[in-house]
């Protein structure tokens, strides 16, 4: 079998496995929603007070930018599980025993990721056609003008994301939650470079095309040039995104992106970057070697002895061990006091479970943040240190509601009496306790200062964060949605003190605790309802 055929079959099998999963339907649903958002003008591209006439060139460009800006963010979290799936299904061990080349494997995974994201982009392209027909401002479908921005802007961007996902999965440090959080900031950096290019220059050069991952700088530059010919007074103000509430009052005719050789070279270069990233991933890929993937055992644990060797030793005479009759019988007591005590034990057990697998440095930083909250000026503690203190445990909260799925312990846990409500509430209490402890320094300050409204906002944060983690964890069974959504929300809301989105109440102006108290209750109820439905006997 030649190499291209091997690669084809690797990509095909992986792609088919994905598209036959329920989650793929959700992915496609998201793509359709993005198309709808453009139609409903929830996503808008505006230059000063202008938007383009809804012709093929304009809609193709808007959809192309959606593919580069939004699909490049969400898409990463959608596809960053291809190697993980081979690990979980243990197919990886079979593959590792074949002559499979590591570069082929990572390239195949990147291509499969790309195929999934490309399907999303193609759905968006199809949506563009429908939007143009439904809007009816220009009924002439010009396929070249419509598809070229979608394909030439969108596909290189998602190719880079597809390869980045494989690279992250291959690097042990970025494989888990750290990578999920880190990618958000990495993506913000990529977008920032593009935006800086938009605002920093009127006429993008070939160099800009190479730097501009999203292509937004080139597009905006060409649009502004074209618009200025129509209205020389037009300002440089431009925006693209969700919730662009300031309605545009004027339209202009956008004739499409002028694809210069430099621009095409820039896009091709991003494709080459994608290929290079996929191959770079092969350097770090462990080929499912458990020795490279396993737990790092401490000195004490190594000294505990190699019992595998003991296991393998066969002895004809089975040594006598205590029999069942030596087990102390358990007294069954279901009094209220006992039940309360045992529930408290479960909260403690869940709390301890949250902390497993993290080094001393985590606790040192958390203690530092606690002291920072306690000792900083109260406003700085509220608007700054608390924000840091409540992003620090994100990887702890993201475990909530997902452990039973990811470690296959569900059958052990849910065959216990009243396990669904007891374990869910205990888990939630442990998550809230974690929030209360990490941000506890501020609570003490607010309490002593008698600032009850700020304390209420703090309390809303304590209850809301684990509720969100629990609801997302239980419903998706994966840590990624919380890690991605929480980080993005944290960045937009609390960090920038945006009212309605500031669930931590970092300033008096941005604080809306009542809504977040209510949201916390609803999210916990949603988690309980979901788990009850999923567990037939709950």
């Amino acid at each position, binding site marked *: 079998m030649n190499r291209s055929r091997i690669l084809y079959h690797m990509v095909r099998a992986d792609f088919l496995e994905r598209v036959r999963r329920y989650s793929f339907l959700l992915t496609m649903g998201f793509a359709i929603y993005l198309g709808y958002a453009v139609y409903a003008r929830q996503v808008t591209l505006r230059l000063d007070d202008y938007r383009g006439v809804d012709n093929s060139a304009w809609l193709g460009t808007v959809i192309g930018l959606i593919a580069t800006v939004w699909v490049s963010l969400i898409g990463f979290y959608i596809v960053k599980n291809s190697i993980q799936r081979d690990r979980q299904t243990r197919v990886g061990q079979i593959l590792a025993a074949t002559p499979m080349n590591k570069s082929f494997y990572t390239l195949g995974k990147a291509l499969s990721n790309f195929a999934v994201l490309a399907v999303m982009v193609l759905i968006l392209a199809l949506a563009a056609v429908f939007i143009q027909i439904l809007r009816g401002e220009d009924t002439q479908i010009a396929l070249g003008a419509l598809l070229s921005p979608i394909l030439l802007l969108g596909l290189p961007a998602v190719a880079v994301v597809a390869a980045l996902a494989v690279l992250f999965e291959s690097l042990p440090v970025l494989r888990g939650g750290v990578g999920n959080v880190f990618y958000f900031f990495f993506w913000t950096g990529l977008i920032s470079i593009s935006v800086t290019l938009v605002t920093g220059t009127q006429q993008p050069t070939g160099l800009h095309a190479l730097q501009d991952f999203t292509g937004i700088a080139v597009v905006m530059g060409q649009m502004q040039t074209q618009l200025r010919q129509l209205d020389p007074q037009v300002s440089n103000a431009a925006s693209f995104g969700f919730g662009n509430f300031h309605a545009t009052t004027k339209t202009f005719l956008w004739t499409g992106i002028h694809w210069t050789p430099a621009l095409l070279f820039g896009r091709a270069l991003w494709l080459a970057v994608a290929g290079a990233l996929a191959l770079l991933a092969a350097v770090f890929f462990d080929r499912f070697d458990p020795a490279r993937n396993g737990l790092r055992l401490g000195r004490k644990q190594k000294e505990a002895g190699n019992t595998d060797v003991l296991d393998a030793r066969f002895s004809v005479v089975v040594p006598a061990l205590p029999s069942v009759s030596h087990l102390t019988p358990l007294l069954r007591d279901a009094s209220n006091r006992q039940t309360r005590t045992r529930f408290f034990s479960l909260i403690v*057990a869940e709390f301890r479970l949250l902390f497993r697998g993290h080094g001393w440095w985590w606790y040192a930083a958390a203690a530092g943040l606690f002291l920072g909250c306690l000792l900083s000026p109260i406003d700085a503690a509220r608007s700054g240190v608390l924000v840091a203190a409540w992003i620090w445990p994100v990887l702890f909260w993201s475990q909530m509601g997902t452990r039973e799925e990811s470690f296959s*312990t569900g059958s052990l846990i849910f065959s216990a009496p009243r396990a669904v409500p007891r374990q869910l509430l205990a888990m939630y209490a442990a998550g809230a306790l974690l929030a209360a402890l990490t941000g506890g320094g501020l609570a003490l300050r607010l309490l002593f200062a008698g600032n009850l409204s700020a304390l209420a906002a703090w309390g809303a944060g304590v209850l809301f964060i684990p509720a969100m983690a629990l609801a997302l964890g239980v419903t998706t069974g994966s840590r990624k949605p919380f890690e991605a959504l929480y980080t993005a929300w944290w960045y937009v809301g609390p960090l920038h003190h945006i009212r309605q989105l500031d669930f931590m109440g970092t300033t008096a102006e941005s604080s809306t605790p009542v809504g977040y108290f209510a949201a916390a209750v609803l999210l916990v109820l949603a988690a309980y309802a979901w788990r009850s439905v999923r567990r037939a006997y709950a």
Partner: protein
Amino acid sequence: MQLAIESVTKRYRKGVVALREFSLDLKPGVLGLLGPNGAGKTTLMSILATITRATEGRVLWNDTDIARDPDVLRSVLGYLPQDFGVYPNLNAVEFLEYLAAVKGLDGVAARRRIDELLDLVNLTDVRKRPLGGYSGGMRQRVGIAQALLNDPELLIVDEPTAGLDPEERVRFRNLLSDLSGERIVILSTHIVSDVEATATDIALIAQGTLVVHATPEELLRSVEGKVWEWVVPSAELTAVKQKFLISSTTRRSDGVHVRVLGEEPPTNAQPVSPNLEDAYLFCLSRHRAGARAGAAA
């Protein structure tokens, strides 16, 4: 103490029927649940362990329908699933303490019992080692320990000896025999010798239906005079395989010793004492022949 399974049917999506009108009454003792792959054993176990619901029929624990009040059973249930996971960063003690809390056990009593159980499953020496570093057999023993945490009245173990070395397997069989006195133990396995060593009752299940429920002695009696052994040259083995239901073959210096099942003895064959494996194969082949005849009619 009684477990009654009444006409239980389990239908999965796309119309796959895993169990069909399955009925069984159980009293204290060890029930060996035998059957080929895909027979419905694990589905039955999941229903009895209150992990999944029956589509039709009901399961009664001391006359209480477990679909209506599963906690009545769960508080006295020990369950070792075929596939289960552990938290790799916890050690055996921490993992068992966590599950004891989930099961609602008192902390002091649970700690004492965990010590005793770790001793019982021979993991005391590695109690402080993270489970992520355990071998498959050691994890299985942790699974056995967690199933016994709450001193269960109903113990359900699905393929419990998978991954255990011969020594641990013998130890586990002895443990099951010890346990059987005042509780119901359901042991699902492919390994007939495990059942032979421990079961007081045997249920044979195939294609989601109960083929036979009997004591080991009754099963053995049912194939009495139907097991034969004779020696054939290696060259004739293929022809013999096509003609008879073969229980086992052993190559020796004088040829292949063939053990066959049948009403009539092959030429030159000697009758031999049946074992449970013979009984299992015989019942299964009779069931399949009946099913084929039913389908043809």
